[in-house]
């Protein structure tokens, strides 16, 4: 309690250096909407807090040369929502990020924090997985890039190695006829943790699905990429049988628990329901008539 330090480095190198040197005693502070709650509850007692919001690469949104986006890991949901083009290209990712907490939380919380917090129920993660986002990670041994779905390792855990910091998300350019959507089930209309979350990204050509990815949250120890659901959709014209098959694949992928937020039976059923609904929205956005 007494020996805690606060650092706000201006460069990534400085941040990585301090983070690695702290050897596990440090926590990265992005929006702080999870970290401060954990500190208050006593479940996190960091010796050092490294605030990464002074590092411009972590707090900026760039459009890449090929038409994709690079989102700094500490960019808040509110800043993402205000970007003039991001939400047009990736409406599902944006709505997922914007579902994290209240307006107040949106002013701070980031997709990077949401991912690194390691919650199976993080709202942005299924949408990012569906979007095929790749994360850039920097650590003592340099930079690497891995798909988003390779980051979560279990509740509260990630595959980042000691000293590594999540820097940014890279979202690929969008072919014509693409659309994405994220839906979650919560008991209230706001302010809840997802009981189930489903992200769907589709590309359609002449009504036929040529590419699809499905991310599924809150039904397993980590957020899942459900290849079976995507495969059921690819090549189809989103007829009832294909969508039902994708829903069945989502249900089959579920390994949920009974807890205060939902039951096993409920979560499995809802995973299929949300897959269907999110697919319909994504298809609509992709321009399916």
């Amino acid at each position: 309690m007494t020996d805690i330090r606060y650092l706000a480095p201006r460069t990534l190198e400085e941040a990585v250096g301090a983070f690695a040197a702290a050897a596990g005693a440090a926590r990265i502070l992005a929006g702080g909407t999870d970290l401060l709650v954990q500190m208050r509850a006593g479940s996190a007692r960091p010796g050092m807090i490294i605030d990464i919001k002074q590092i411009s690469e972590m707090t900026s949104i760039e459009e890449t040369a090929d038409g994709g986006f690079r989102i700094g890991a500490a960019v808040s949901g509110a800043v993402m929502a205000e970007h003039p083009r991001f939400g047009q290209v990736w409406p599902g990712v944006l709505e997922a990020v914007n579902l994290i907490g209240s307006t107040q939380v949106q002013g701070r919380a980031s997709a990077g924090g949401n991912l690194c917090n390691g919650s199976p129920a993080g709202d942005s993660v299924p949408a990012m997985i569906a979007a095929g986002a790749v994360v850039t990670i920097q650590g003592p041994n340099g930079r690497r890039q891995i798909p988003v779905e390779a980051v979560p390792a279990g509740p509260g855990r990630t595959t980042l190695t000691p000293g590594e910091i999540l820097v940014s998300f890279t979202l690929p350019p969008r072919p014509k006829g693409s659309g994405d959507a994220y839906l979650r089930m919560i008991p209230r209309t706001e302010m809840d943790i997802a009981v189930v979350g489903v992200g769907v990204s589709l590309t359609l050509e002449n009504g036929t699905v040529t590419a699809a990815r499905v991310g599924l949250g809150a039904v397993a120890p980590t957020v899942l990429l459900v290849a079976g659901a995507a495969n059921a959709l690819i090549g189809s014209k989103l007829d009832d049988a294909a969508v039902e098959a994708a829903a069945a694949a989502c249900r089959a992928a579920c390994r949920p628990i009974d807890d205060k937020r939902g039951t096993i039976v409920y979560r499995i059923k809802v995973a299929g329901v949300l897959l269907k609904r999110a697919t319909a929205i994504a298809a609509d956005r992709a321009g399916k008539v």
Partner: protein
Amino acid sequence: MNVINNKWIGSRTIRPDGADKVTGRASYSSDTNMPGMIWGKVLRSPHAHARIVSVDTSKAEALPGVKAVVTSKDLVEFPLDTAVMLGIQDMRWMSRNVMAREKALFHGHPIAAIAATTEAIAAEACRLIVVEYEILPHVIELEEAIKPDAPILHDFIQFDGKPSNIAGKLEHKLGDVDAGFAGADVIIERSFKTRPVHQGYLEPHSCLVSVSSDGKAVIWSSSQGQFMVRAMTGLLTGLPQSDIRAIPAEIGGGFGGKTIVYLEPVALILAKKSGRPVKMVMTREEVFRASGPTSGSMSTVKIGATKDGKIVAGQGIYYLQAGALPGSPIRGAAGCAFAPYDIPNVQTVGFDVVSNRSKVAAYRAPGAPIGAYAVECVLDEIAEALKMDPLELRLKNAAKQGTKAAHGPVYPVIGFVDTIEAALAHPHYKAPLGKHQGRGVASGFWFNAGGESSAQVNVTEDGNVVVTTGHPDVGGSRAAIANVTAELLGIDHKKVSVLIGDTATIGYSNLTGGSRVLFASAMVVTQSADKVITTLKERAAKIWKIDPEAVTWEDGEARPAGANAGQFPPMTLAQIAAKASETGGPIGAGVQLNTQGAEGGFATHICDVEVDLDLGIVRVLRYTSFQDVGRAVHPAYVEGQMQGGAAQGIGWALSEEYLYDKNGKMDNASFLDYRMPVCSDLPMLDTVMIEVPNPKHPQGVRGVGEVPLVPPLAAISNAVYHALGKRFYSLPMSPPRVLEVLDGV
């Protein structure tokens, strides 16, 4: 009642405490600090049920910065065999709730407390206290607690001659229910369950206590009654009431949950031992784990009616969770259940059941929503069986003037029928419904209370008025009192300042509870104002050198009573006040009274819902409350009570509940997972105020604060039935449970 042309009563004036509350200046209990102040923290039981073998505080006391330690030994001991009552609270239980004595009875039960120079040191010191527990089997759920082989919480509690968790029984009887059912054409009997729900006030419990070297204590705290704080703290610490000054801070919500003490006696002893002012503030988690909630329940209700829709018999058996110590609101459940109806044969029974949960506290019409939920749901089925409109069924059986209620009274003039007729005539009741939508109705009753109240009305030298009363203002009562005072004295309400006195500055006033505040305080303010007017007339008479009988008081002025009295220009209150010292001294009057004549409140609610059949989500689309409000002295705050009660009812019906893990620990002790309705969950909450003045009150006031929470549980439940065609007998109707019923799982 001849107040036809009211100027202030019934007007939507700006509340006297408003400016401070919209600018952040208003001082709530945790907003106050003192020089030299230190912080108190409570060590709480990590077990749901355990014998306390020993408590060793030596390591904690040795921690630098620790200034005092309190255990149950420092509180007055109330032997288990002797009840010591303060109002409805028994100090045997209250003292054991404030600090565990023989046993830890629930997870979160206070075991000891520390005061230290910082909150962090106090928390650290709590971790250094070594408590040896002998862990005992625990019981959480009501149905488990009443089983013959259940773990027994209290050996001294017996029921039917055996140790039991059933701590009390209450029965109301009217007529002969067996004979009544024998004459019924339709009988429906159903069983229901509700879960414990928390009052959910946004301000956690907190207090600041200073004890000076002569032993006199000052308590700043957030409560629904500074006199309750003084009395309970006095009893639990052994201090005479005259040595305790309890100052009511602005209160950030109570809903009944702040009608007892948790921290004040502990902070007082810590302050006394340390010689320093001690501040204690609960975390939200502590609030959930160790304060409130209201009872969960199991009930069975049976109603019989004849073919023409006349209810001939009603029976209700209610089991209510008390938490770890006796005292659930069985009186409210059993007393209010059938109270809206004129039924010749009624029997209601309530059982008070202890289990290893935090001790319940009052919550807005305590027990009554539980009572009404079961009755009003069964009535919906009776109406369906008889092919009658559910409001027509209620109208046909509605209590009215002269009806004898099962819980005792014969009603005077009441407006229940008016609420049903207004609901029947309202556009809401006829509005079309869409797919998967349904409409439900329900009614409800709450006793309302009077009781002790004190007021002082003083005229200032510059001709303004200061009114002091003794009930903390939870929902705008100061605004209503300003209206009453302005009306009586005939002056602009802006000239009236209304304050809440502390225990040293105003006479004894009972809790803000029972929907009593405006009823009681308007009565004593009226009598005080009458005395002030008498004085004002005497002073004018003195100035005019005429007989006081020859002076009248109209529109805020003294006037000669007629031509015979003499020709004098009227004198305003300000003019008389300016001459007060020459005419006899300060002008003011106070009245202290045990007020009588509070009459019951009735309401009827209409609710529309829509159900998402695939996800099991129920959303409230439209809600209208019809209530006999007596006299709406400040209509905006009456509406506010109606709306707030409806919103709490919606939470109770759909999303709020206490969840426990297998170790008997509350699993959702946060606003994240204890799901109170948020702004986007609710529609506008429409209100129809029906004014049937209470004949026993000078302004016609009836309590309005509590009955709004009585009908919603059943109104929503009935609406869900009409949307789905399936009945729900358990709350909350959360999405997983809705799907369970829909899918038949």
